[in-house]
């Protein structure tokens, strides 16, 4: 069902000022999970490509309701399609869930600091993700696979609540079939039909193949999952400066003006959302559950 107010009917002009949304048309709406969907977008006018770095996000705008920060989950090597994977949790995201092919929404971005794909060259790459955290890291996986010869061991550790909650399942299976990448998947609980692992991601970190001093670890997921994953990585000898996490804060401007996303001395929208752990550790709660 099309949203009631469209960008066209809102009378917004097309302009590339960072505070003004640009109209993008939905090419495809793909249902991923019960409450999660992917919108594939293309610009309605202006430059046909939307270059971005893995880890960056956009502000998606539904006229009359507001804007939400959403990471880009598509392939940075294919900038003609802008891809966002969204969980419908509240006001704006539920409205975005109703967008179908042909509908138009507003996009501002790309914003924020990316995952350190350049710094990780020649090193082992360990990707630890939980739940929807796979979406912001998928561009990294596309990038690393496209430049596979530039990296050492690449290991993906992915955890979800149950087999039904596994995001991008078909792609996970494809990646798992490659010889140059190892994919470990675990769920919290499962019935007897599930043939994969049951446990938590932290337990799988020790089973991955990586050389701790030569490893860049990228961690994304809910707070508690990131906390325990960082603890485990540190226990295994990965340096705090080589562990990167993605932080979430409420946002408004997305460009470091309004202060809504402040975390200690940082503005998450501009200095983050990706931070190395050594920078963010005083503001990253390490308390046990």
């Amino acid at each position: 069902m099309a949203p009631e107010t469209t960008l066209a009917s809102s009378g917004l002009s097309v302009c590339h000022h960072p505070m003004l949304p640009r109209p993008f048309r939905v090419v495809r709406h793909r249902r991923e999970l019960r409450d999660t969907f992917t919108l594939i977008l293309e610009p309605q006018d202006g430059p046909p490509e939307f270059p971005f770095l893995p880890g960056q996000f956009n502000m998606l705008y539904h006229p009359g309701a507001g804007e939400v920060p959403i990471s880009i989950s598509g392939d940075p090597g294919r900038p003609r399609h802008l891809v966002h994977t969204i969980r419908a949790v509240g006001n704006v995201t539920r409205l975005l869930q109703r967008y179908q092919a042909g509908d138009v929404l507003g996009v501002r971005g790309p914003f924020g600091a990316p995952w350190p794909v350049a710094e990780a060259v020649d090193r082992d790459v360990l990707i630890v993700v939980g739940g929807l955290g796979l979406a912001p890291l998928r561009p990294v996986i596309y990038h690393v696979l496209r430049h596979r010869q530039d990296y050492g061991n690449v290991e993906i550790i992915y955890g979800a609540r149950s087999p039904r909650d596994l995001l991008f399942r078909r792609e996970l299976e494809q990646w798992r079939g490659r010889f140059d990448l190892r994919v470990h998947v675990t769920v919290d609980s499962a019935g007897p039909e599930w043939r994969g692992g049951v446990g938590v991601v932290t337990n799988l970190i020790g089973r991955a193949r990586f050389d701790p001093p030569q490893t860049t670890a990228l961690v994304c997921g809910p707070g508690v999952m990131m906390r325990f994953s960082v603890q485990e990585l540190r226990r295994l000898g990965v340096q705090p400066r080589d562990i990167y996490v993605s932080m979430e804060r409420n946002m408004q401007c997305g460009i470091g003006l309004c202060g809504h996303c402040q975390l200690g001395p940082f503005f998450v929208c501009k200095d983050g959302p990706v931070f190395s752990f050594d920078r963010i550790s005083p503001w990253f709660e390490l308390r046990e559950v």
Partner: protein
Amino acid sequence: MDNLEQSLAAHPFLAGLTSQQLQLLAECASLVNFRANQVIFAEGEEVKALYLLRFGRVAVEVHRTRRGPKTIYTLGEGDFLGLFWSGEEGKWFFDARAMELTRAIALNFDCLRRVLDNNPDLGYELLKRFVRMQAQKIKILKLQLVDFYGS
């Protein structure tokens, strides 16, 4: 070293034991295989052996009336299967089922008790490893109880 002792020495749970200690354990050990879906033990059954997994994958399950089994955690190569049984009754708390072809070293329970009682140094060493592993498992179960991936 014979085949069995080599397999014992190669298992991470027994890493660092002396060859004399491994020889003592070898008295209680045998190599066993389980086919996919074969039940290794069931809740309430008497504990007859503890298992050092060498290959494959095992689901530790609870049985729920009407809703069928639910997997609590899975174990694989290098893991120890044999933590959750009641000391007084010597009975299993959970079911264990091979998810695929699984190879293991079975340590006969009565024999193991006898060997450990008679060799307190080895007994203490293994007890420390059991406790460490139990603490680790409880930590994992705790994380599974909070909504680890949900928010």
